[in-house]
């Protein structure tokens, strides 16, 4: 895979990376606007993960069989993440959140967040009650969220 170095510099994104957004998001007007999408829908074929199928089960079983599992290896993400380096890194990331949050008067939420388990992937940080975005996240399976202004 071409993408390998972690970077904090965002990229503008090539067409391939934003094509779904262009085709599948953005404002839509009905009826009198000609939505000229001949053949375009094909590009947004839903490629969702379908796990509940025999084919998938067989594929997973075979993939794992080929992995040469080493149960004693201790190299999975939990170990990776729980390592000192990572712990510090996450801590640092959390500290950096202080600034914007301090200004917003949400210190309690912030403390709770910092106290969260450092092993990011093994145990997701506890979402403090009242965290602004904890409940905002739409279920991945629901259709697109209704923005303000649509209720009119």
């Amino acid at each position, binding site marked *: 895979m071409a993408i390998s170095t972690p970077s904090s510099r965002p990229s503008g994104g090539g067409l391939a990376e934003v094509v779904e957004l262009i085709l599948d998001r953005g404002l839509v007007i009905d009826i009198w*606007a000609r939505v000229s999408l001949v053949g375009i829908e094909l590009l947004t074929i839903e490629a969702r993960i379908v796990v509940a199928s025999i084919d998938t089960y067989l594929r997973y079983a075979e993939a794992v069989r080929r992995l040469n599992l080493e149960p004693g290896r201790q190299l999975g993400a939990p170990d990776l993440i729980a390592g000192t380096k990572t712990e510090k890194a996450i801590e640092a990331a959390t500290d950096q*959140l202080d600034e914007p949050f301090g200004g917003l008067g949400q210190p309690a939420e912030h403390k709770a967040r910092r106290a969260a388990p450092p092993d990011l992937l093994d145990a997701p940080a506890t979402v403090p009650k009242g965290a602004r975005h904890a409940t905002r996240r739409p279920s991945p399976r629901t259709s697109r969220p209704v923005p303000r202004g649509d209720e009119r």
Partner: protein
Amino acid sequence: MTGRAEMTAAASATPQATSLYVYGVIPAADARGWPGADGIDGPSATVRTLVAGELAALVSALPSDRIPGRRDDLEAHRRVLSLANERGTTIPMRFGIVIDSEDLVRKELLVRHAPEFTDLLRKLDGHVQMTVRAFYVEDELLREVAENEPEIVHRTAAIQGLSELESWQERIELGELIAERVTARRARDEQALLDRLAPLASDVRVDPPRSERVALDAHLLVRRDRRSALDDVVGVLGSALQGHLTLRYLGPLPPYSFANLSLEAGDQ
């Protein structure tokens, strides 16, 4: 074709049946000094602004019988909106919106829906969309799920050396167990990443994974003055997760994921 040409002529009174491709909507104040840009039909169709009240639409001429859908068309759409987004708050239209006349753009798009646009512009004001995607490195997800689950290790060992046919039932049961753990694991990773990113955003949209490599596909509506803080957090996460998850960080993008307003035309 004849019917369509007649309709167009009635609406816009242009002899060669030209329609307008619509890219997006911006505040009228930002329309002043719009630099122009090549539109979807090339240099012959410069992108200009159509103002009505406090709003302006970004449009370019398009022959009525020309159907946008080529790669270059998508690229032009992306490029124009990217330029607009650099200049100020922009509501991006979905690709492929064509309206038959200037009059219709003004009356039916801008004037009729002024309240929705104004609301949305207020919400988006001073924000950009930053997209963060996280991909599992190769077989990391499977390996991790399997090695942390003695039951999977055990059952995997049991099918070693057996053909698919010989171990059909065992494989299905094993695969089902793996699938269940993979789904749970992915959801936890997604949430863990979101917990770190969402506090810096004013709003968040999460798309369902489009492949098994995807741990997270999140779109963050971020205030421009919080961008550098988000950059830092993404950078730190990227380093911490190296070898396990690869992060892809895109932006600033026009707020595609936060303009999912579907406007009804009403009776014309």
